[in-house]
């Protein structure tokens, strides 16, 4: 059954206006199903061929007290006919399921003389008790709070109850379906297809025909409501974006990381042993990988973060590839094992899906504040390669590269993602895994000096030591955390050996530079301002650079994937610009590294609010830097 079949005969009478791009924000209680609603709207939007970026924003509490501001869960989606690189600076339509959702998010709605955004509210949720819970002293629907905004008052609760009057469902079950009414209405308003959601419902409730029918009914009722009510003067369409041709799917960063790891396992022939302890926002990786047991991936849910990385390192000793993922607090616990991985020179991939810190911080809010920790946070001189993903889709290749480098150079690698990338989605041209770089693996199977096996003899090009796995005769050896003799791998307290080994471990990590392609500069190749970014800020920076260049400024952008070692040509690129601006979602971290390595007066643009940059925030700073020039 197609949704159009369900439309009334006089459908499509509402005029349709075309927009280049739209930002919509669904907000409600953490139990209102806003993430699901946003996810389904995303799918429909992807199917409508728009480019898009999403920002799920939810509280750490699973079900915070209903109606409170701290229990508000939001899902922001920016979609367009042109290239979309951020989840949107300002919201065009806020769907607020209750007063708290309105209160928390109204400031994000566009407000300008050229046209303000719209607010769709569930008016049934604005009783005195709801207002009290949200901390409103008077009703914002009546006291002028919404002056200047276009307001769509909809009785979502009542309409949903009426739609389901004939269904044998409890009031609680009925009320939980009102997100489907809102979704149907939003799909109608932006002329999105309803079929992807219907298909999803059919798959999800295949064994529960009553619930399936109820959801389908409410969804289509919501869709029809837009047409039959006179609330909406117009509906909107956003033309398909001109994306490069190919087969696409929507992807979230954590899904892409999991696929990248699976690809590494398949391409290398190395089984991946994934040790993990659940932690927000990295747990999705464990969920995804634990489904892929028929792809050469083994998952172990360990008793804690330390055991998770210990099991991964143990697996690497066994000749598999040990991988673990966590967020900041977990990385803190894993550091001693990472050090053991460095001195034993075993491959190990440690993924940090960063969140706001310090300590427990804000578990569901994004941040880039573990960079210096990843680079330097270990006892002793303990360098390792650090790689960062810059978009949800980029997580795929970055995961693959982290595995490849860990094995090729026999070293732990830290991969930095963050909550925004992990949960955010974008259309993803499905890559050809065979087009990725080769991933050969060799094990030592016989003595390498006379009749002896010396585990610390090295490859001249990579400085990687030989990898022999238990079970192989004649290459038995002992590893451990005590300093190694540079050749035999035996315990050594020799002063000169320790200095030589410390420098050798550093030199080995520096050799990873030979893997880094020439640095690409987005925008101008030289000029006034170079923006140096890393990680999830790529989209915001690109949008800001585009805007600044449109104003005639000469601005370039370098986005660093390998944070250690840094690209060999980075110093040359930096020298071609007058100013260097480093936007980061932390209190200034990469900026220290750049100043240290290149002795350039790089300037920090710090945002530490648990939210991504708006492109406008970066663009504003670029303009300030140039106009304040003497």
């Amino acid at each position, binding site marked *: 059954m197609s949704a159009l079949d369900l439309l009334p005969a006089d459908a499509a009478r509402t005029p349709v206006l075309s927009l280049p791009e739209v930002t919509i924000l669904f907000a409600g209680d953490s139990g209102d199903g806003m993430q699901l609603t946003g996810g389904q709207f995303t799918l429909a939007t*992807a*199917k409508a*061929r728009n480019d898009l970026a999403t920002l799920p924003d939810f509280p750490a509490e699973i079900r915070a007290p209903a109606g409170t501001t701290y229990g508000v869960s939001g899902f922001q989606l920016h979609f367009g006919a042109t290239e979309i690189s951020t989840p949107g600076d300002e919201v065009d339509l806020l769907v607020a399921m209750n007063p708290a959702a309105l209160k928390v998010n109204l400031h994000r709605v566009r407000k300008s003389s050229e046209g303000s955004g719209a607010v769709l509210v569930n008016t049934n949720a604005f009783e005195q008790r709801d207002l009290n819970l949200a901390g409103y002293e008077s009703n914002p629907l009546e006291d002028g709070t919404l002056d200047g905004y276009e307001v769509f008052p909809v009785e979502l609760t009542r309409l949903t109850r009426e739609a389901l009057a004939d269904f044998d469902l409890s009031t609680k079950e009925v009320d939980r379906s009102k997100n489907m009414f809102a979704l149907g209405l939003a799909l109608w308003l932006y002329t999105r297809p309803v079929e992807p959601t219907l298909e999803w419902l059919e798959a999800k409730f295949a064994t529960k025909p009553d619930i399936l029918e109820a959801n389908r009914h409410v969804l289509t009722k919501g869709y029809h409501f837009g047409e039959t009510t006179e609330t909406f003067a117009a509906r909107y369409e956003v033309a398909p974006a001109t*994306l490069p*041709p*190919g*087969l*696409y*799917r*929507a992807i979230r960063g954590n899904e892409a990381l999991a*696929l990248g790891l*699976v*690809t590494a396992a*398949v391409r290398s022939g190395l*089984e991946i*042993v994934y*040790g993990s302890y659940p932690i927000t926002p990295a747990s999705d990786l464990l969920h995804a990988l634990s489904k*892929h*047991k*028929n*792809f*050469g991936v*083994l998952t*172990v849910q*360990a*008793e*804690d973060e*330390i*055991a*998770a990385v*210990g*099991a*991964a390192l*143990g*697996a*690497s*000793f*066994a*000749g*598999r590839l*040990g991988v673990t993922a966590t967020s900041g607090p977990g990385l803190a616990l894993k550091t*001693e*094992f990472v050090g*053991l991985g460095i001195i034993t020179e075993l491959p190990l991939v440690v993924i940090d899906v960063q969140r706001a810190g310090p300590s427990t911080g804000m578990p569901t809010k994004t941040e880039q504040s573990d960079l210096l920790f990843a680079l330097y946070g270990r006892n002793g001189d303990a360098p390792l390669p650090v790689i960062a993903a810059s978009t949800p889709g980029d997580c795929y290749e970055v995961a693959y590269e982290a595995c490849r480098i860990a094995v090729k150079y026999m070293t732990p690698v830290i991969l930095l993602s963050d909550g925004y990338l992990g949960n955010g989605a974008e259309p993803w041209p*499905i890559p050809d*895994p065979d087009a990725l770089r080769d991933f050969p693996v060799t094990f030592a199977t016989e003595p390498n000096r006379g009749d002896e096996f010396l585990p610390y003899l090295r490859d001249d090009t990579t400085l990687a030591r030989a990898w022999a796995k*238990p*079970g192989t*005769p*004649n*290459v*038995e*050896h*002992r*590893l*451990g*955390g*005590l300093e190694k003799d540079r050749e035999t791998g*035996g*315990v050594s307290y020799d002063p000169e050996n320790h200095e030589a080994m410390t420098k050798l471990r550093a030199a080995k990590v520096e050799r990873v530079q030979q893997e880094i392609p020439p640095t690409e500069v987005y925008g101008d190749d030289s000029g006034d301002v170079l923006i140096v970014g890393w990680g999830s800020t790529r989209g915001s920076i690109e949008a800001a650079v585009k805007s600044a260049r449109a104003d005639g400024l000469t601005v370039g952008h370098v986005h660093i994937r390998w944070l250690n070692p840094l690209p060999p040509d980075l110093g040359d690129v930096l020298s071609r610009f007058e100013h260097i601006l480093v936007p980061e979602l932390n209190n200034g971290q990469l900026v220290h590294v750049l100043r240290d390595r290149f002795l350039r007066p790089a300037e920090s643009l710090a945002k530490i609010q648990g939210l991504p940059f708006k492109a406008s925030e970066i663009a504003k700073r670029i303009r300030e830097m140039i106009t304040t020039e003497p």
Partner: protein
Amino acid sequence: MADNEKKPTRPPGTKKPTLAPKKASLPTGKKPTLPPKAGGPKRPPGAKPSRPPGRLVPDPGGDGAPALTKKDFASDADVRWCPGCGDYAVLAAVQRVLPDLTEKKENTVFISGIGCSSRFPYYMNTYGMHTIHGRAPTVATGLKCANPDLDVWLVTGDGDALSIGGNHFAHLLRRNLDVQVLLFNNQIYGLTKGQYSPTSEPGKVTKSSPYGSLDHPFNPVSLALGADASFVARTLDRDPKHMQAMLRAAHAHTGTGFVEVYQNCNIFNDGAFFRYTERDTKPHTTLFLEDGEPLVYDEGTKGLRLDGLRLESIDLTSGDWSADDCLVYDATDRTLAGIMSRLFWDEELPQPFGVLYREERPTYERLLREQQQAVVAKRGTGDLHDLLRSGETWTIE
């Protein structure tokens, strides 16, 4: 002491209590005064060393390859434990039994944490890894999950396993990874030069407890039983034959074979276990458990019987009792193992050695691999291209 003297007098008609209050048990910070005696201790009659069926090599060298010897398992590294340390005895016992237990030296792996005992892997000419403090079980877990065919031995100490690594120790046992765990218990921190450990007796005066330790100690075998260990044994560094028997039994067990070794630190805690190891006191302070045999000790002159849930010592020479009155040990009885494990530094009753408990249950790595194989059998080996294309897709022309 005659048995009847120990029984509490009860008013007529009152119910006999089944649980007696625990007797004073732990010594309070006193150092044993018994000097070490020359010569090995004599085993009491009725406590013959058990020879459980180990995974003995049926025909070592029968395939033409030379049989392995003790020497094959010794690495070139100089052993750096203090002269006289109990660790030497364990190393010798392990190197002695391994040629009987494996014909593939390359499959043997020793994993350790940190501490004196954890230097062990360096002295074995096998695969090995000296990991970080308390975390050996985690590395062993990854190793065994990755390759269940490996024969993995964990070497740890009272600080490594029970203090900093207490968490992993408990989880290793409940998961029942198929490894052997040798816990060298010397009731002291040796490598850091003499602080009290989680098995030190209360009141112990050490560098970090000049006024006496306040900590209540762990009883490692009780802890292991509490964590649902599938094999729990205790042995002594000064009884090499018994230790070898326990190593073989632990190795023969499929699952985590936990062996607590009372090990003398002659530098920082000399004589901690002399009560149990020395000739003068060993007979009446120790009881060597034999599965299916009555609990008899002190050269056959004493035995243990159950009075309710309480163990009591009976005099087999008085004429009132015979070996038939003694409890027959059943190492597969968890309740019995629990009762036996609570004989702990008891002034009146002997300390048990041998296999306290064993049960057969699936190992973690076996279940993990079976589950993986079941998924592969059901869904086939995954196709990467299909996986990447799964879910909702669309084509842009």
